[in-house]
């Protein structure tokens, strides 16, 4: 956390002075004298970023004061809190939630549809909201929120282990065939060393990385039937199967909270890990000086159709009063502006969510020069599509069904064909019937 503190302070100071993009705040006059209450989760990751953004926002205008309620430890706790508060009428004005949960709030009428407010701003591209970035918060016909901090899956590797098997750390495998072959080689070193771990447990995110990699999708476009049970889904499961069979991938405790893969990696006993870029900071801290840690882009599956899922947090407006909604919009706009997103990146290492900050090296060029481990994720920005949020009341439950089915492959208890068929049957039962 300490490495960029000076940079972010400088950034915060710079903000007060310049940057015309968000200085035009027509809503402020109408929304004068509002104390805005904001909620976010995962203070371990976001506290510094949120406080820098609130400080910058409060410093540049006096009509709206932003203050935070106690942050919740995880996205799940955060979702519970807002759902409970919706029932008791104690909602904050703005809440930062996991991107795949925005839909749940939109369907329950808790998250304000931002299309009206966006329309008043004119061309969204002028504010740095490109169509793909807006798409990250657009679910089931509603602009439920705006992406605030995004992540995508990247490759982490132990350069020392690669050298030990004669592989060049500068030329990390570009395809899964090569990655799996390399994994087998590293596993051949023995002494409890494994080649790779693909972080499939926890939720459906990493499975969708494989599915999207083949150009597949979870449900049909009308969301009435499963679509992952086609050739792309089968290819994705077969790839996972090959990682276990040929890449000798161990089955490291199948749970979201399990840290066995991180433990093995930090101990220098795991060659490669494929998981979210959000962990870069934590992993580089736990690795320390044990070995040379490197990161790079994911091996490519389909260079044309292939995409990657987007994780992270989005900002949604939960205020009901129009005056507060406008004030909340000013803050959300600032938090996702080029300046806001730069503060977020410098304090977290997540991927920026404003096209202006992505395109213009003035904002983050220096940061990435000094923190090369964060670069891998930014190279994949053009590939990022939304982390699919299932419709209906079983939205979250579906993801558990998928993980349970993937476990059968990780344990080599069923073939990819059998797993795909069962997965399709179970998910079909859980999506709303038309």
């Amino acid at each position, binding site marked *: 956390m300490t490495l960029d503190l000076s940079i972010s302070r400088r950034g915060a100071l710079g903000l007060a002075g310049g940057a015309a993009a968000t200085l035009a705040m027509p809503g402020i006059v109408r929304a004068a004298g509002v104390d805005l209450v904001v909620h976010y989760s995962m203070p371990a990751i976001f506290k510094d970023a949120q406080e820098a953004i609130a400080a910058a926002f409060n410093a540049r205008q006096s009509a709206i004061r932003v203050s935070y309620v106690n942050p919740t430890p995880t996205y*799940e706790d955060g*979702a*519970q809190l*807002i*759902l*409970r508060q*919706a*029932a008791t009428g104690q909602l904050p004005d703005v809440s930062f939630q996991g991107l795949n949960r925005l839909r*749940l*709030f939109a369907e*329950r*009428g*808790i998250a304000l549809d931002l299309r009206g407010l966006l329309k008043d701003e004119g061309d969204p591209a002028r504010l740095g909201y490109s169509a793909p970035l807006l798409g990250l918060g657009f679910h089931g016909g509603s602009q439920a929120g705006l992406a605030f901090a995004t992540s995508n899956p990247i490759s982490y590797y132990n350069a020392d282990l690669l050298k030990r098997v004669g592989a060049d750390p500068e030329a990390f495998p570009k395809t899964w065939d090569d990655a799996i072959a390399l994994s087998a080689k590293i596993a051949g070193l023995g002494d*409890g*060393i*494994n080649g790779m771990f693909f972080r499939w*447990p926890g939720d459906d995110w990493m499975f969708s990385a494989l599915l999207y990699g083949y150009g597949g999708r979870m449900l049909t476009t009308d969301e009435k039937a499963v679509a992952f049970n086609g050739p792309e889904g089968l290819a994705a499961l077969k790839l996972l199967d090959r990682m276990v069979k040929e890449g000798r991938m*161990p*089955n*490291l*405790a*199948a*749970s*979201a*909270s*399990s*840290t*066995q893969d991180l*433990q*093995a990696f930090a*101990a220098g*006993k795991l060659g490669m890990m494929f998981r979210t870029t959000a962990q870069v900071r934590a992993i580089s801290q736990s690795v320390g000086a044990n070995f040379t840690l490197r990161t790079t882009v994911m091996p490519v599956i389909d260079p044309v159709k292939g995409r990657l899922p987007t994780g992270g947090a989005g900002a949604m407006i939960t205020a009901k009063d129009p005056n507060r909604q406008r004030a909340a919009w000013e803050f959300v706009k600032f938090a996702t502006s080029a300046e806001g997103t730069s503060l977020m990146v410098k304090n977290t290492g997540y991927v920026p969510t404003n096209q202006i900050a992505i395109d213009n090296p003035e904002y983050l060029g220096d940061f990435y020069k000094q923190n090369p481990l964060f670069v891998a994720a930014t190279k994949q920005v053009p590939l990022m599509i939304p982390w699919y949020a299932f419709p209906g*009341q*079983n939205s*979250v*439950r579906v993801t*558990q069904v998928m*993980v*349970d*089915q993937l*476990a*059968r492959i*990780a*344990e080599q*208890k069923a073939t990819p064909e059998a797993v795909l068929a069962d997965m399709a049957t179970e998910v079909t039962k859980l999506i709303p019937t038309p």
Partner: protein
Amino acid sequence: MAEAATIAQTRAAPARRHAGETAVAWLLAAPATLAYVAMILVPSLALVVLAFTDYELGAPGFRWVGLGNFTELMADRGFLRSVANTALYVLFVAPVSVALGLAIALLIEGGRRGRALFRALFFLPVVSLTVAMATAWSYILHPTIGPLNALLRAVGIDGANWLGDSGTVLLSLGLIGIWENAGFNLVLFLAGLTAIPRDLYAAAEMDGVKSAWDRFVTVTWPMLGPTTLFVVIITTVRAIRVFDTVATLTQGGPNKASEVILFTMYTEGFSFFRMGYSAAITLLFLVAVTVLMLVQNRLIDRRVHYG
């Protein structure tokens, strides 16, 4: 004091005194009664109501679904698996940790040196925070870098993937459960042992009881009856309630192999937000636990000798 004085003054009028005493009794019991009603009775009744609805956390309203949640439960692979897993877990953890607690208590009681040390050592798991210990367990049981498998490798055995293999995960969690519960039972048994009058042993020796086993069978075991009843019930309850190790180590995985009732209840309610469904699980759980406790109490109580 004031009340005592009032009671003393009204001794002459029994009817009024009785009324006054009743009032005082209610007054004294009021805080506990109110707390019980507000914190336990009302929420429990709300739970019963919720169990017959499709209420979701954050939803604007709910529909009555009658027995819908219960019929869904009966066909829910995950729930049935979690009932079976919980039963297996209890059948393994409860008897072993009771027996182990008793055995260690007897050894410590019979030993001459280091009693305090051993008592403290075996009690440590009870006072340590499970969530914090989970990280340690996850490392110890790690398939490749874990000390346990390293130890096994040293003697030429290929260790299992303790928490990652659906065949061993419940066993591993059970062993952790025993580690946690045995120390607790040990302390209860130690307390029970010190309460046995010494002269009973002397009397038994006079009557020709010579071996340690005979002393145990004729004096210790019958005298420990009330303690054992308590320990058995409390251990069963603690085992049925297993949650933290599952939540922190396996989250019910892989593929529901370590799914237990309380964890299912938690995920349905707080991860999947299906409050009605979760309430139905809780209701079944409450009924099952109550019945189990009543049966256990009746069965064992008949054989207990209250000295």
